[in-house]
């Protein structure tokens, strides 16, 4: 790895230690300050890696809390990349890092069969032996991917255009959220372009140490993004982790690629919709609001959204919806961190981290939980048993109910 981050901005103040959810859950993790900047000095001297590096979930709470702008989690991910060069990560980590690729390989198999194949007790026992915890809430394959379904979605009468990066979770497991995004953007007067060339943003690959694969995906995505950027069309995503990857991780990890293709930051789709409301393109109010029962919503802010320094536009969107009473759970990380909480040796840690959030959600009296991140939604449903939707799904539900076609 040619990229190195100077650890000497760190003054060892311990702020990140206080805010690290993994360090709180297990004393077997050295903690962000020690495994990040402090240990980096040992790495620069060529000393052996600490055995607890794998505990870092890359949730970014260290980066969010650091008063000195030390990119602690990036130091950790670069160290993991070095480690994986010396010792190839196992099959389990490959499986968790390449969900989109597997979905493409399996695309000719009907979803029912795929889900039976993946989720039956025998397979779960095999996966458990492989290191994917049998209790973990593996998502179900959708019958058709979002991009397949989007092709059949009739978009008419729009004169503005926007490019949508769905992210693997929406594309493979949760097309409904993607279609709700399409519907809402259409309602705001936008024709939505969903390019076939997009591949996984690469964050799961980085987190699991598959650096070369992440680089290959970055190359392909950045080239595609550059083409749309040159046409002056805004590019948005509803997934906070994908947005974070394009905004901060790619330029940090692959500065040469960022230079070659230019930077195309993905805009937050929820913020884009708020701007549509501001511009009068999307109307959230209606005359017959009294006829709808109040919807109580509890909102969870994904850590990767908080890391982007842009506040909580998804929550703001909920607050602008008539008849929706929304509350910020403000109960910390859900624990899942992408593929982290599916791992057998991390499952209990992830559940422990999310326990405060699960309790807050359960006790909220809300009808539904809301969060932008796909795996946060899976984890919240798993931990609290309250259904969890993307904010745009609530927007569509309410707008459809308020203004029946």
């Amino acid at each position, binding site marked *: 790895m040619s990229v190195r981050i100077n650890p000497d901005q760190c003054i060892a103040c*311990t702020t990140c230690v206080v805010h690290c959810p993994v360090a709180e859950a297990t*004393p077997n993790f050295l903690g962000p300050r020690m495994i990040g900047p402090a240990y980096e000095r040992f790495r620069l001297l060529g000393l052996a890696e600490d055995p607890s590096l794998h505990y870092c979930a890359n949730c970014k709470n260290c980066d*969010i809390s650091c008063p*000195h702008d030390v990119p602690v989690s990036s130091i950790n991910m670069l160290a993991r990349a070095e480690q994986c060069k010396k010792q190839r990560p196992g099959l389990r980590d490959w499986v968790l890092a390449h969900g989109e690729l597997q979905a493409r390989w399996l695309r000719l198999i009907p979803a029912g069969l795929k889900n039976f194949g993946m989720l039956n007790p025998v397979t779960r026992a095999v996966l458990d032996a492989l290191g994917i915890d049998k209790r973990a809430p593996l998502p179900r394959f959708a019958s058709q991917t979002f991009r397949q379904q989007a092709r059949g979605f009739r978009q008419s009468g729009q004169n503005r255009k926007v490019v949508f990066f769905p992210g693997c979770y929406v594309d493979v497991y949760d097309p409904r959220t993607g279609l709700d995004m399409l519907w809402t953007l259409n309602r705001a007067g936008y024709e939505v372009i969903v390019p076939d060339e997009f591949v996984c943003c690469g964050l799961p690959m980085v987190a699991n140490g598959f650096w070369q694969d992440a680089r290959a995906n970055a190359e392909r995505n950045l080239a595609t993004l550059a083409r749309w950027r040159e046409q002056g069309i805004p590019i948005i995503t509803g997934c906070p982790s994908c947005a974070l990857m394009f905004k901060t991780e790619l330029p940090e990890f692959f500065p040469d690629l960022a230079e070659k293709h230019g930077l195309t930051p993905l805009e937050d789709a929820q913020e884009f919709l708020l701007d549509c409301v501001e511009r009068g393109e999307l109307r959230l109010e209606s005359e017959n609001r009294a006829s709808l029962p109040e919807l109580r919503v509890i909102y969870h802010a994904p850590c990767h959204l*908080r890391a982007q320094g842009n*506040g909580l536009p998804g929550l703001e969107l909920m607050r602008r919806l008539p008849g929706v009473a929304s509350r910020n759970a403000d109960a910390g990380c859900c624990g899942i961190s992408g593929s982290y909480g599916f791992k057998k040796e991390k499952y209990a840690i992830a559940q422990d981290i999310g326990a405060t959030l699960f309790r807050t959600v359960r006790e909220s009296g809300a009808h539904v939980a809301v969060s932008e991140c796909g795996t946060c939604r899976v984890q919240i449903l798993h931990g609290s048993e309250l259904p969890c939707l993307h904010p745009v799904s609530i927007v569509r539900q309410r707008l459809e109910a308020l203004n029946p076609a």
Partner: protein
Amino acid sequence: MSRIIDVLVVGSGLAGLVAALTAAREGRSVRMVTDGMGSLAISGGCVDLLGYAGGQRLNDPWSGMDLLPPAHPYRLLGASRVRAAVDMLLQCAADQGWPLHTAATPEGAPCNALLPTIMGTLKPSYLLPDGLDPAALARARRILVAGVHGLRDCRPALIVSQLRRYRDWADKDFVPFMLPSPLGATHRSLSALDLARLVDRPRGRDWLIQNLRKHAGQCDAVLLPPICGSRADASIWHELNQAVACPLVEMLSIPPGVGGLRLRDALLRELRRHDFELVENARIIRATTDGKRCTSLTALAAGQERRHTARAFVLATGGILGGGIELAPGSARESVFKLDIPVPSDVTLWSEPEIFGNHVFSRLGVRVDGEMRPQDDSGQAWYDNIFFAGRSVGGYDFATEKSGHGVALATGWQAGRMAAATAGKFHEPASGEQL
């Protein structure tokens, strides 16, 4: 960031939190933008008001305020405003189930307390949570000094030998004692915060109670590291105290100090009852002004610039370490408005040879008026709707005065209140509110 809010607070340390709370309690909408979490979370949870002034250790912090230089924030504010700020914090903390109190003289007047640290030193402080009762220590003849195996930064034998150097402590009996680690062998060495989080749970409380009970019976008080829970929940300490049947007194610790995390928890809980939003991981880099009025601040976040528009602004951006003050050889300036801070051009004059001396660098900060508005050389406010608070304000030296949280509290309160009033004028131009 399209919504225009009343008060934008930059920084989430104690000064920023108090400013936000003060403005929010006045009914203003408040947005806090923060680059990092502020050092309250790693500090001890007491409020040092004023421990030393004019070369004297103060028993009564209020009596020492007149000894401070005229440009000191306490002098600019006046003691009555400092008192009002203290009262607000006392009320908010009590409302959140985290009551604070002060020590008292034999005559019953509030005074500074001398609190033991895990280094066995004594430190003056003023507002204390329930877990820090100096009276229990003063009464005690025989004190159990507890450490925990695996907690490297708290050594009972060291603490005892250090405390014996103090006259009031020299003739007490001390019983140094190591509790077994509740977590067994761990990959990292434990911190007080690890243990405090364990004690949040019934299993951790059982561990502490069982082990202390064995020895506390023969003692009048127990000194222990700050491990009685990590949240602003005084019931944990009361439960432990009752179960052990001996007063427990926490020592102040190096970061993470746990106590500050509890106070922060209480303040954030109180803030969430109001119209308050938090934007994390965003660094304010620039201001847009129109004459003497600031219209917006621009943040850099995830490689993109974002504009935050508000009616009034509180800058609680911290000092040199926190990023509120930028230094270059021979010059210093405030980091957002780039206000010049006068310094000797010869940098060797910025510090004293004595490490605990009167360093110029430790008093560096923005010059403000009594309303916390930044001032130019002639004493005129640079802007009408900008207020500074906390360590970005110049004229005090928290380390030698032991006044850190106190100045943060007092200036945060004043800045929040002035910002609320300024934002209010915007709403109702005819209002003749007396400030």
